[in-house]
């Protein structure tokens, strides 16, 4: 019990200690690169709460959600088609693997050349880049569905809709979710990249502009905000995943305990 308490203190205490160290060590800092944490937090408050909250923070988040949402729905739907229609798979699979090899951020210049620097470009880049992880995971998930399950569905004369929502989707669920998680990370990276490449709005653009004009504290404030968003997005995703896949996580735990 005592040991457990000690571990708790260590786990919670280290981040606090590190932050405190950062605060104290940077307090007298005159370095151009590492301004005092106090100044960074002041700038954080001044910039993000509430001067640029609506114009930049909300804008970035809306692009992220929109692009990611489209990619997730389209990725799962396309994944189904590719996994279940053999001809579609043969035609599309090599193409998909080639496109997947392209670093997602490298697609941003192409979209800029096609549709300019606007919001559409950012949403389209996010959507296309985060489509692939979800789609590929869905294909893999459906192809590894237990053949017994498929047979049972056939014996019970399930309709296509029933098969899709009651057999394939739940059985492929764990893999689809891991694809969705990678997709979210990619979407977040492309959101930042699309803003850093020549845009004037959004958190990424504000951060890179601050860096280019040597407003170091503003840049640090942007980095902090992006870090917090990256962490929070993953946390929220994990909570949803745990909820939706509660049955799966529970069965895994039982299997491991046995």
């Amino acid at each position, binding site marked *: 019990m005592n040991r457990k308490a000690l571990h708790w203190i260590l786990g919670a205490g280290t981040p606090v200690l590190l932050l405190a160290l950062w605060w104290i060590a940077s307090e007298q800092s005159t370095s151009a690169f590492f301004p005092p944490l106090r100044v960074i937090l002041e700038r954080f408050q001044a910039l993000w709460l509430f001067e640029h909250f609506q114009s930049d923070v909300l804008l970035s988040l809306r692009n992220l959600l929109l692009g990611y949402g489209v990619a997730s729905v389209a990725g799962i739907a396309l994944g189904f088609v590719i996994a279940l229609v053999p001809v579609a798979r*043969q035609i599309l699979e090599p193409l998909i693997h080639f496109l997947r090899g392209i670093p997602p951020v490298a697609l941003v210049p192409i979209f800029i050349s096609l549709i300019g620097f606007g919001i559409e470009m950012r949403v389209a880049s996010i959507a296309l880049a985060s489509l692939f992880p979800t789609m590929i995971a869905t294909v893999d998930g459906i192809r590894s569905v237990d053949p017994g399950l498929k047979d049972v569905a056939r014996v019970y004369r399930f309709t296509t809709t029933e098969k899709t929502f009651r057999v394939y989707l739940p059985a492929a669920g764990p893999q689809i979710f891991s694809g969705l998680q990678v997709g979210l990370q990619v979407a977040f990276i492309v959101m930042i990249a699309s803003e850093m490449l020549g845009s004037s709005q959004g958190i990424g653009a504000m951060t890179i502009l601050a860096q280019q004009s040597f407003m170091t504290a503003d840049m640090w404030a942007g980095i902090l905000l992006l870090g917090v968003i990256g962490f929070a997005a993953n946390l929220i995703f994990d909570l949803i995943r745990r909820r939706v896949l509660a049955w799966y996580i529970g069965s895994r735990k039982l299997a491991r305990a046995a």
Partner: protein
Amino acid sequence: MKFRPKPLITSVAGILAAIVLWQLIAVGPAADSPLPPASAVAESLGTVLGTSLFWSDLAATVGIALLGLGTAALAGVVLGILVGSFEPFRYATLAVLEFLKPIPPIVILPLIVLVLGPTGQMSWVLVFFGCVLPIIMQTVDGVHDTDPVARDTARSYGLKEPEILARVVLPSAMPFIGTAMRVAAPAALVITVVAGLLGGGPGLGRSIYQAQAAGDYPTLYALVAVLGVLGLLFQGATRLVEGKLLHWHESFREAAHA
């Protein structure tokens, strides 16, 4: 393995159809848009492949990615074994690592560019930071997964602690490290490209940015296509190396028999 010509034909036909479709769209309805026709891209691919600049860019990209990956692997495994072997260490770093894990390296790109400038060193640092965390965390998991009986057996045979680490703990953590490396290797390439594209580090990323900024769209597409092939090669190579190094492990033994 059985050779089946039919799916191969459909796959090739799929790729050809996509290229023809692209050519038709670019020449026909989208003739005024910035979308270059496939023939122009193929032509500029030929030109680009003939320049020495391209090959030095390619060498820089691959070199930085491999250097970053190698140093990250070395540091990650050493730190992972340290953190995984000492309970207090593990609890102290858990929260910090979990917080940092979902934050992509692009977030700290402005800071690294500010401090190091648009150099190869900057790209390397970024790749290192992007790859080292997952390797540490997987190594920690691997160390924890070591069979306690194997560890105790080694101890009762009189093996010293460093020997146990090298002969029992490290081999049993290898599959975990292998998984981390398989994810980290393509990531290293992506981060190198991002560092070039957004931070001006040397390599193909910077060339893509320059092609886009100069409005040289055929070259832009040709370079992105090269990155797609390079990405596939990276993925294939890591899988090959992993299989060679871990041929003794259960998950690979299965594959060998099949």
